[in-house]
């Protein structure tokens, strides 16, 4: 085992992590720890653009942007955070341009802007050109540009180091003095454990799309950061809100940008009917993502799906000029050709909603400080990007706002972490800081476990797709919860065939699966308790939004698994370490349903409303 010491350690080298590193590294001794090489992050898969009210091509201002974000999130957005994001968006874009990002340009040489779903002028009057873009590769350009700047600043990277635990000085659930002391990482190349001490720890590990089977997310997006924090007693906020992007390539989940429908593509069912006319008579195919995804799923469910198994619908571009398609949608048409062998000029493309983005995550305030309950922070612990929940996305994120989120809050996290480190002292590490991780790894690697990682994961993803996807009911969620519990029991007996130390990726997948199971449970328990429909969360048994009861953020706490898996050999990181969850938190909150047999305790947090009172969400 090796020990390293830094002022700031950033976990994750995607957009948010590298943006934070650029701010932290000139101010404090910074290391970025990532289980992938920096440019492998899923930020690079983002296509459309990054919104900012630059007003380069038409009248715009950040207040309109704030309103669109709040409304897009179905009013579950914390409006102070949304204001900050919209206001700082302008500088975020200009910062990137100064770093060299090759934005597309207007004829005058300024950064060009285009329209995007949900972004409007003057509080919903008409679409506005707000998305700054670089062809249909905006995320790729952002990721590359940030990495280039990291090279320029000589930022220190620990590549292919998988952070499996965060070290705190106490239990955040009970100890107000608990603060960050560092992380424990597993080096993929050698199998060695490293304890990285730090005054500030920034989580920027991205999303958890792999809890679902059909997802646009990378194989590596297994919610590591969220689960690591959660296991150490940090709550998770709004995890039941997961965005399903309407147009993923059927069966594969590979994303086809919203820009396709923006350019005039039409969704059709098996009989060729433009079914969106029935669901959203006015704006049809350009309805918000949650509505379109639900409509598509409904067509399939009612037997109007296309294909031999009637399990997808069709995205029709055949009425568009090939030259127009080539100019505006080169990458996504290439995806259709490469992966489905479909020629979009002449054939409709099979599509189906794909799990896309976790609106929830580690709760933070607008300074990106991680909250240990509704109000108090854990000093030295920060989070930004998809792993965090500020919450600027509420219950449904608006297109382009994810790239904005990582830049605005990534920057804030870098500054805040460095500033904190300047005054804080390096916390003493317990001797056995890596003990829990070591035990967990050793038990998986050496144990005689018989359960297969891939099988459990596949079953988890299938049941999540079947029961906790676009449509949810009490029955389906109860079913999936039982499945998860059964799978968790089996996971305790998981084994790997690879006993080696060098690039034991089978072991990594086993650890990732542990995180996925943990998070899937939080998603489902949160969804079961939220008896309303809002944004990305749709309950068929409660199809309306219920502001009376649920204009609140869900806060999920991990209850120590006393009765469940205590003492099991395959027990995972941190289990048993956490003392009492503290039944006192959340005084004055309305009584909520409890779920016996699970390890999740739910609480609720009020939404910050500044100037936009909840209204009916109509487009």
């Amino acid at each position, binding site marked *: 085992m090796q020990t390293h010491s830094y002022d700031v350690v950033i976990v994750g080298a995607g957009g948010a992590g590298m943006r934070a590193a650029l701010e932290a590294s000139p101010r404090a001794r910074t290391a970025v720890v990532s289980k992938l090489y920096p440019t492998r992050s899923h930020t690079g898969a983002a296509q459309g653009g990054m919104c900012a009210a630059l007003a380069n091509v038409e009248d715009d201002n950040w207040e309109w942007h704030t309103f669109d974000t709040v409304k897009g999130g179905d009013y579950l957005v914390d409006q102070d955070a949304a204001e900050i994001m919209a206001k700082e968006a302008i500088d975020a874009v200009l910062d990137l341009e100064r770093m060299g990002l090759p934005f597309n340009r207007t004829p005058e040489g300024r950064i060009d802007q285009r329209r995007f779903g949900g972004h409007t002028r003057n509080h919903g009057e008409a679409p506005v050109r707000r998305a700054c873009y670089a062809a249909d590769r905006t995320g790729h350009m952002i990721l590359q540009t940030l990495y280039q700047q990291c090279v320029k600043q000589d930022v220190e990277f620990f590549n292919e180091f998988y952070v499996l635990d965060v070290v705190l000085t106490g239990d955040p659930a009970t100890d107000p003095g608990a603060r960050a002391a560092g992380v424990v990482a597993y080096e993929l190349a050698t199998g060695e454990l490293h304890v990285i001490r730090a005054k500030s720890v920034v989580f920027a590990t991205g999303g958890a799309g792999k809890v679902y089977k059909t997802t646009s997310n990378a194989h590596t997006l297994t919610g590591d950061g969220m689960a690591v924090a959660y296991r150490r007693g940090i709550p998770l906020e709004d995890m039941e809100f997961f965005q399903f992007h309407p147009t993923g390539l059927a069966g594969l989940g590979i994303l086809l940008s919203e820009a396709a429908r923006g350019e005039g593509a039409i969704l059709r069912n098996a009989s060729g009917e433009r079914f969106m006319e029935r669901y959203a008579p006015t704006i049809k195919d350009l309805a918000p993502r949650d509505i379109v995804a639900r409509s598509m799923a409904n067509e399939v469910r009612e037997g109007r799906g296309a294909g031999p198994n009637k399990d997808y619908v069709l995205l029709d571009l055949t009425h568009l000029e090939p030259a127009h398609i080539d100019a505006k949608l080169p990458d996504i048409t290439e995806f259709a050709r490469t992966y489905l062998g479909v020629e979009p000029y002449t054939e409709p493309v099979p599509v189906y909603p794909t799990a896309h983005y976790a609106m929830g995550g580690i709760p933070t305030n607008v300074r990106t400080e991680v909250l240990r309950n509704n109000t108090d922070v854990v000093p030295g612990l920060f989070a930004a990007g998809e792993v965090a929940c500020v919450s600027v996305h509420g219950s449904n994120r608006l297109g382009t706002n994810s790239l904005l989120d990582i830049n605005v809050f990534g920057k804030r996290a870098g500054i805040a972490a460095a500033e904190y480190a300047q005054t804080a002292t390096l916390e003493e590490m317990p001797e056995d800081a890596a003990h829990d991780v070591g035990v967990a790894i050793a038990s998986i690697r050496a144990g005689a476990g018989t359960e*297969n990682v891939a*099988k459990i994961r*596949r*079953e988890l993803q*299938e*049941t999540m797709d*079947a*029961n906790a996807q676009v449509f949810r009911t009490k029955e389906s969620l109860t*079913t*999936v919860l*039982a*499945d998860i519990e*059964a799978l968790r029991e*089996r996971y305790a007996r998981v084994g790997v065939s690879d006993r080696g130390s060098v690039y034991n990726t089978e072991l990594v997948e086993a650890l990732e699966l542990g995180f996925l199971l943990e998070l899937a449970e939080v998603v489902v328990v949160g969804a079961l308790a939220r008896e309303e429909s809002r944004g990305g969360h749709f309950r068929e048994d409660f199809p309306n939004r219920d502001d009376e009861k649920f204009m609140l953020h869900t806060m999920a706490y991990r209850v120590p698994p006393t009765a469940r898996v205590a003492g099991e050999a395959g027990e995972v990181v941190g289990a048993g370490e956490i003392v009492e969850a503290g039944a006192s938190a959340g005084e004055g909150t309305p009584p909520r349903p409890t779920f016996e047999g699970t390890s999740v305790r739910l609480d609720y947090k009020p939404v910050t409303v500044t100037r936009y009172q909840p209204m009916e969400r109509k487009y």
Partner: protein
Amino acid sequence: MASAPAAPPSPAPVPAPRSSRGRSTLYRGTEGMWSWVLHRITGVGLFLFLLVHVLDTAMVRVSPEVYNDVIGTYKTPIMGVMEAGLVAAVIFHAFNGIRIILVDFLAKGPRYQRVMFWVVIGLTVVLMAGFLPRHLGNVFGGGH
């Protein structure tokens, strides 16, 4: 739907993995790579011939008899065939050299490199078709 653990997906029956000593395969480049390989081989060949050729020509300094003896070995049928190969190598190396120059200096050169490779091959064939009858006639036709 997924309440009971699904039956494990049955993997295809697999024969015991067959193992053999690993050895990396030849990289399967296309025209560009093969033209480079040919250019190298012909280049080295021509250089070695050049050394020999300067040496044999230097025999003119020794005496006319020695030179004529040495140069006489070039006139056997076997050497005649090798000379034909030599000329083919010169032609390919020369025209492929021009192709490389066009790739380096013309903006559109790289895009047409493949076409140009086949042009080079074509030119080599055409020129050899012009040269071979005459040369082989000289070699095998006896001359004086």
